[in-house]
């Protein structure tokens, strides 16, 4: 039994000529609009990137209104230098210490000296007797053992304690360039409105300030935005990179070799594969919680370093660089495994067969034939994964990166802060100056990531040349 097809004439299938030509213009206009729409959307993505970079750079430089408690020129002139030729950093170490002695209260001075002493052979603020007493006490301050302060350190103290600059308002780069007078008017009207009651308008100096500067990179963190820097944070981030790499690379590459070269299809091996794919999609904050619960809390004796040092580690709990680095390592692991697997799978089978045919064992084949060929891919994937981990903030918050630390990390068991944490903290402060600092620190973080990515490219090129 057959179904009768409804009878159709040819004209029903195809448009008539008028219909066709009548639609033609509209159809081609629609196609053009669509192309324009797609192009516009892509442009929006580019604009977003440009705006983001613009915002960061714009906030990192610009005019500031600054009030110095003591003018550096006056200080230098008082010491008998010519303020025209000598800056405050041109004076000698002894003169700097002398300035501190003259301007800092004895209580603050003693505190500074207990943190870190000024001279190897003599004390400035403390008496020898008291010093010997506190150093013999149960908990001697860091100054008893640490090396004396260097020139840069004392200069920072002079800036902070003697000059005491106070940025009362800051302006953005573009606005400062286009309309420098506007900023002065703004500050002036701020004074009229009674905003800066502790100063007079005559005290205010307007100057250009690069928040992102060598001094910024090299000075330690501080609660005073004028002298705060990110050395501590950069060192913290570098420690984290080292520990992340030490953990994630051997384990990740090992797991990838196992899955690609050794594992036979079995239920358990399939489970591992599915599991890795799932782990790659777990939000980073969950890894932070894992790190908090296991590394910081359960493994506290190990991660705080207590079992290695007998309880005298620099940190009294598990919130250390080691915990954070391992957390980032766990987070990076799935990505390292997946990208290494891709690289290993791309190695042609003929190499494996050649190795086997020569009588090499599986591991010998992998080590001497397959890994060298897969290396560029493995390295690139790894470095990109690590670069992502460096920018991660949420897991570090969870494992307890300290927000305010001025002492450089001394090893895997110290407390630490890292660049993204520093940016997070500064961004969440309400004062404008901290925004400038956050922007400058963002530039530093982006430059660090750029360096890592460049390293990935260079390594890849170098290795692939050697293999060919």
């Amino acid at each position, binding site marked *: 039994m057959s179904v009768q097809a409804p009878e159709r004439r040819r004209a029903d299938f195809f448009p008539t000529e008028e219909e066709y030509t009548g639609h033609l213009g509209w159809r081609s206009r629609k196609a053009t609009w669509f192309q324009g729409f797609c192009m516009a959307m892509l442009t929006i993505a580019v604009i977003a990137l440009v705006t983001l970079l613009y915002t960061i750079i714009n906030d990192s430089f610009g005019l500031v209104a600054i009030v110095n408690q003591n003018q550096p020129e006056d200080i230098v002139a008082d010491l008998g230098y010519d303020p025209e030729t000598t800056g405050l950093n041109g004076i000698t170490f002894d003169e700097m210490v002398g300035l501190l002695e003259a301007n800092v209260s004895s209580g603050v001075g003693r505190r500074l000296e207990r943190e870190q002493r000024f001279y190897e052979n003599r004390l400035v603020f403390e008496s020898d007797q008291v010093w010997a007493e506190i150093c013999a006490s149960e908990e001697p301050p860091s100054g008893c053992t640490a090396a004396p302060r260097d020139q840069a350190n004392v200069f920072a103290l002079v800036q902070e304690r003697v000059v005491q600059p106070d940025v009362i308002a800051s302006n953005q780069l573009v606005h400062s360039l286009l309309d420098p007078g506007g900023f002065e008017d703004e500050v002036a009207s701020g004074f009229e409105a009674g905003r800066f009651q502790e100063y007079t308008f005559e005290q205010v100096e307007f100057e250009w300030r690069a928040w992102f500067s060598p001094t910024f990179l090299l000075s330690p963190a501080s609660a005073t935005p004028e002298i705060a820097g990110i050395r501590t944070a950069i060192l913290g981030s570098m420690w984290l990179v080292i520990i992340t790499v030490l953990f994630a690379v051997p384990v990740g590459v090992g797991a990838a070799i*196992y899955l690609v070269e*050794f594992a036979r299809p079995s239920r358990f091996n399939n489970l591992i594969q599915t599991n890795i794919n*799932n782990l790659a999609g777990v939000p980073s*904050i969950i890894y932070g919680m894992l790190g908090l619960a296991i590394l910081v809390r359960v493994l506290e004796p190990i991660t705080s370093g207590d079992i290695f040092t007998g309880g005298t580690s620099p940190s009294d709990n598990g919130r250390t660089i080691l915990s954070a680095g391992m957390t980032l390592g766990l987070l990076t692991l799935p990505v390292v495994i997946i990208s290494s697997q891709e690289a290993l799978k791309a190695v042609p089978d003929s190499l494996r067969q050649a190795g086997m045919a020569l009588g090499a064992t599986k591991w010998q084949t992998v080590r001497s034939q397959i890994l060298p060929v897969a290396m560029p891919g493995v390295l690139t994937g790894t470095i990109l994964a690590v670069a*992502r981990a460096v920018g991660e903030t949420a897991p570090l918050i969870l494992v307890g990166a300290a927000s305010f630390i001025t002492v450089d990390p001394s090893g895997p068991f110290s407390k630490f802060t890292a660049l993204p944490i520093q940016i*997070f903290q500064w961004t969440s402060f309400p004062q404008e100056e901290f925004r400038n600092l956050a922007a400058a620190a963002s530039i530093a973080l982006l430059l660090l990531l750029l360096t890592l990515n460049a390293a990935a490219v260079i390594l890849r090129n170098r290795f692939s040349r050697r293999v060919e």
Partner: protein
Amino acid sequence: MTADDRIRAEGPPSSLQKSPRPGETAIRGFLFICGAISIAITVGILYELGKESFLFFQDESVSVVDFLTDTFWQPQVGRFGIWPLVLGTLMITIIAMLVAVPIGLASAIYLSEYASRRVRGFFKPVLEVLVGIPTVVYGFFALTFMTPLLRSALGANVVGFFNVLSAGIVVGILIVPLISSLAEDALSAVPDSLRQAAYALGASKLEVSTRVVVPAALSGIAAGIVIAMSRAVGETMVVTLAAGASPRNFIPGEDPFFGYILNPFQSAQAMTGYIAITANGDLSYNTIDYNSIFSIGLTLFFMTLGLNSLSRRLVNRFRQAYQ
């Protein structure tokens, strides 16, 4: 008697027998452990999240029913209903998707169907740079650029300093590259024969793209969108910095739906935001706050796991069709 027969009868000569290689076995064992560590991570996540959540629900002021039904999250008075936090997360995710799906999809179509090699060479790196920027920098961007922009465009009395809209838009920008690259992969995997057949029938480029190529790649595109959604749900820093730290508690039926509950111009804490803010600073163990972040973490884990599995299923379907 041939050599073959002799081997069959006597076994291979001893020089060809498989000799034990302890080094090889040890390395094999090490590699297996490396592979198995990933299982340990998953078990660790599930165990810790589960254990702390269990302790959380053991507390007398908390019950599972209230956790799943109450619309107030006020730890100070002992009310732990997850809905305000879920509401914050969902609002931000929806706004992000509204921003990212058109931009990401249109970019992917342009790059795969229209762009010349040179144009692609320019735009692809731009999108890759967007992926590489840390999320905390996006958070800074949201707070110092997007929020002031919205406030000056829509009025400072309408838009709060912390608001869902700014966070949502910036999360959207953050996931654009994810959607565009996954969608572009799916589009370029569609066989050229389909395009050529459509052109042969007289279709315009628009008609080929939207009626032939996109439907053919649909499950691959959908997988990319779902993955991006999972990323938006788990995104922390932008949400913490820009969306504020007050959960939007509401009384269903009483509070105006669009005026208050779904108002994108005011602040609303998201799940990830709550976890980050609570954990920031010294959080002491075995407190209800400590346990509560794990219960939210567990919810978050299952939400993203569900989205990720859905995405994998879509990808597999797409693979079956074209590979």
